[in-house]
């Protein structure tokens, strides 16, 4: 995985609550057997009309936000299915950071596995950032994972919390499987014991 560097870029506002994974990437695009190439279909049904033409009003179709790297979204972002295609599509579009008051559990996990940072902030702060993001091309924000701060275009900085292990993995670009395989001994011991007391498993 690539290391998570400081992110500076445009933030796009999506004030809708409960943005679900079906909206982020509708199921017709889950038929791929690859991880890449899903960015063009990100938010497909909100982004294109029935003939496949862009809907100009949709935020990521507006000139100011086409290069957005940050998404500021309403509560409970990413609810619904476990499809990792959702973070893959966001990442492929270029989104590195999401800001919201809360996320669905599986989506939240999936982000970290793909080098993306989902930031949780209190409602007033998300609202302030949402307002800032509405300024279009001027809404350049900076996200520094090292110091756990996000700074908006006015210079207002907000501190966010992140699990230390996940932070470490993002900053170092560590692969979970590699880390776990270092504990192969512990897994073997567990299996040996389990085969004694739960042989039916």
């Amino acid at each position, binding site marked *: 995985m690539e290391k998570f560097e400081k992110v500076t870029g445009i933030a796009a506002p999506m004030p809708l609550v409960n943005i679900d994974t079906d909206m982020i990437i509708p199921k017709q695009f889950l038929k791929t057997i690859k991880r890449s190439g899903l960015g063009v279909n990100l938010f497909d049904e909100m982004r294109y009309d*029935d003939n496949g033409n862009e809907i100009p009003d949709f935020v990521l179709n507006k000139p100011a936000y086409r290069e957005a790297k940050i998404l500021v979204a309403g509560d409970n972002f990413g609810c*619904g299915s476990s499809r990792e295609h959702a973070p893959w599509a966001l990442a492929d579009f270029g989104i590195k950071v999401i800001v919201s008051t809360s996320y669905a559990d599986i989506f939240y996990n999936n982000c970290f596995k793909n080098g993306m940072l989902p930031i949780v902030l209190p409602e007033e702060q998300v609202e302030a950032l949402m307002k800032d993001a509405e300024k279009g091309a001027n809404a350049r924000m900076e996200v520094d994972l090292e110091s756990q701060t996000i700074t908006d275009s006015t210079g207002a900085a907000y501190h966010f919390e992140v699990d230390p292990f996940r932070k470490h993995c993002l900053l170092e670009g560590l692969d979970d499987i590699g880390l776990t395989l270092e504990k192969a001994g512990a897994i073997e011991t567990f299996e040996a014991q389990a085969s004694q007391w739960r042989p039916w498993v």
Partner: protein
Amino acid sequence: MSPKTLYDKIWDAHLVHEAEDGTCLLYIDRHLVHEVTSPQAFEGLRMAGRKVHAPDKTIAVPDHNVPTTLDRANAATMTEESRIQVEALDKNAKDFGLHYYPVSDVRQGIVHIVGPEQGWTLPGMTVVCGDSHTATHGAFGALAHGIGTSEVEHVLATQTLIQSKSKNMKVEITGKLAPGVTAKDITLSVIGRTGTAGGTGYVIEYCGEAIRDLSMEGRMTVCNMAIEGGARAGLIAPDEKTFEYVKGRPHAPKGAQWEAAMDWWKTLYSDDDAHWDKVITIRGEDIAPVVTWGTSPEDVLPITAEVPDPASFSGGKVGAAQRSLDYMGLKPGQKLSDIEIDTVFIGSCTNGRIEDLRAAAAILKGKKIKDGMRAMVVPGSGLVRAQAEEEGLAQIFQDAGFEWRLAGCSMCLAMNPDQLSPGERCAATSNRNFEGRQGRGGRTHLMSPAMAAAAAVTGRLTDVREIM
């Protein structure tokens, strides 16, 4: 020993390693795999030259893409892309030596129906699958939850998962349910109460008399939708009904192992004085047959209610409710029971089990669906289908005018050809009413199998108690 919840007990029994920062490595007893969320994980394994750590604990079945029409053995019934995904699973299952139920096997079906049916899901286990409705298996007192594809790869390679512990939430449903009220009404009503994010950060244990009274099928329906309430998992403590259901299944323990397993399974309950981070109590008597009116599973109301006014909500929900009503083509104040429908879908991992088909058939017996209505039953597995045929249910459905399909996910998420067209309105027994879930522009109302059957007869959302 300090008192523990059921979740605490299962967690402790599977803890492989705990780091100083609290990050835990949890052992996984069963890994269920389907064709949509696994190809990239197997590709990852191959690229890293890794093997499947415990193929014997890994069970694969194609379900999401497979056509449910009788001619599905013909490859032309699938789109090229769907065919490639199913073929990839065929190949991965074979190459890595997994337990596999191909489309041609009568045991094939929706992964969350096949697992319990074959006895793969047992009390006290940890069960994961690259699918959010893995929560279903919690009905057995197994800690079961959905994972993403990177985690699928992680479990394949290590048979463990990196986890942090969730908080404990108790949802108690007291007393008895009224006639016409089912497990689906319980689980939807809970989400209506807590919201789709109400369970975020928690594992829910469902308990109380109304839960105890449910069959295993009903309990699976309740746990299935725990994820729709945002919870990581739903759990129900195993009891005699659970043991009875499990006993004799192909992969359940036998003989002395059965006795040993029972000794442990009987300790799987939350201690009386266990600590709960959140408790919700609902009186069973207060639960009515419900339907959803919007595009989030929390948009739940009794069938006797009216479409709500978005202005009656607060915060971001005002806009979301307005958007829902625009999408659903509904007006505030409209009676829910006046809403006319075009299509009925009975099936999915929420309500595709034998008891669900019995409940729907009981309503349909001797009746016909409304003229012009499209109605289909998609059994959750080939074995459910066979049993329903044996019990004469298939005949009742067909006499009423329903299509009688082969097993799969079908119109629950419309990855196969079973889809709604724009504006088409469906009474569905599945679990998600998201925009476009059943087909672009399609409008979904979630409800119980009996309610869906009633709607098929009258052509509108209907209070099942009127025709019981």
